[in-house]
């Protein structure tokens, strides 16, 4: 949408005015908004809020093919990510690698982690099945010890996982 004042630049500021009982929408570009003394990035830099990030996600990711592609692990789709700005799990990084690489380059200016490297402790990652069998074992133990409160809580956890 073009700025209502200069009719040259894209409007970036959408204002809602209350005139009497009527609601009026005003759309201004950054320059015209600054001229009217309204806070803009020219007058005052704004912090990068989640909204700004979301709009860059939307601009970037909407251009990607395979919008409905889903992460096989958690079921998050690119569309979900575009709506919320959040990924569903670590595996999403593999599932949407190309889109994310472009997005990271755009919002972070880089894709390469230069910080500390990390080796996860081995044998600790629990799969869903392993977690369930671990919980079932704990449930049996709790029942045999007649600890019914913790048994009930474990049973709830198992149901949720199942």
């Amino acid at each position, binding site marked *: 949408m073009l700025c209502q004042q200069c009719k040259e630049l894209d409007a970036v500021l959408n204002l809602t005015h209350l005139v009497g009982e009527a609601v009026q929408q005003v759309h201004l570009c950054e320059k015209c908004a600054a001229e009217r003394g309204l806070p803009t990035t020219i*007058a*005052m*830099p704004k*912090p*990068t*809020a*989640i909204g700004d*990030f979301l709009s860059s996600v939307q601009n970037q990711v909407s251009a990607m093919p395979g919008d409905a592609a889903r992460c096989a*692990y*958690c*079921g*998050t789709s690119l569309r979900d990510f575009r709506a*919320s*700005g*959040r*990924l*569903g*799990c*670590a595996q999403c*990084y593999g599932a949407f690698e190309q889109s*994310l690489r472009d*997005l*990271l380059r755009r*919002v*972070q*200016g*880089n*894709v*390469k*982690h*230069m*910080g*500390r*490297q*990390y080796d*996860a*402790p081995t044998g*600790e*990652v*629990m*799969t869903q099945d392993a*977690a369930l069998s671990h*919980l079932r074992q704990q449930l049996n133990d709790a029942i045999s010890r007649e600890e019914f409160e913790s048994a009930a809580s474990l049973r*709830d*956890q*198992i*149901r*949720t*996982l199942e």
Partner: protein
Amino acid sequence: MTLDLSLLPDGGVPWLAASGDHADVVLSSRIRFARNVAGYAFTARARDGERLRLLAQVRDALPQVPSLGGAAVLRMDEMNLTERQLLHERHLVSKELAGLDGANEVKSAAAVLVSHEAGVMVNEEDHLRLQSFRSGFDLEGAFRTATRLDRDLGAILPYAFHPEFGFLTSCPTNTGTGMRASVLIHLPGLVLTQEISKVLQGLQQMGLTYRGLYGEGSEVIGNFFQISNQTTLGRSEDELVEHLARVVLRVVEQETQARRVLLRDAGYIIEDKLWRAYGTLRHARSLPADEAMNLLSGVRLAVGLQLIAGLSVYTLNKLLIFSQSAHLAHAAGRTLTESEANLARAKYVRRVLADETGPAGAVA
């Protein structure tokens, strides 16, 4: 569950001590790491059982993590609104974890661990948000503690890590180091001399960003700014911390310079304005939160300029946090309407100032 504040080591706010460098300008330094544990969906996508299991895993790990020794474990989903707000006012939990951001309710198994030197939010936007605060300007100290905590916990819980992208986070703006280094800084001199927008613009050009007193999405109020690194990829943790520290020291210099200019060019106007702020705090019978924050900003400046003697920065720090609405409600033992809170705030501020400087009227 009733929140027993005595269980919180140092009330969870040792950073109010005003003990570090430049403590009259820099309130606190903070490092936080965003981490996720492999094998679980990220918090927003995780099921109740996964979140409960994660919390149990973190609790099990506690005895092996020295920096969390003696930590209090507080479940957000077992607390009432005032208690959650109070923890947020102390910067111990984010709005999201405390279910205060409007969009999200408190999630099951959302919790915070608070020890003398560090804290961990569990089931926040990321599974773990490790954080360390220091009083004054001490990014290095906060970084040391947070890094130790990160290494100890990461040796027990397997973090989600990618050799190229680094630590994987729910929001890609944190991916990489997952680190946000920040200082909470008071810049009334730069605001009054109208230099602030130039300074803030400069920050953005240097890869830094600013927010209000309560971080993302919060307004700048009382001339308090939170300055932090903007990006988390492409630079190491050390580089990010050193860069921020260098820039913050420069901002502190600019603030000091602006204060000198103010005194030189508008001495009596400034002096009058600040004494009026002090007078209002000492005598007002009703104080809205925003007004109190702005008046406290003025008095803080007056103490920094040595116009007001006998009042410590520690007391001002305490007033800044403990005069907020949830703290007043907690002290009253019930929820307060806005006007009741304003009365309670004025009374609390008057009492604290009188305790420190003697009865009203005794200060020259």
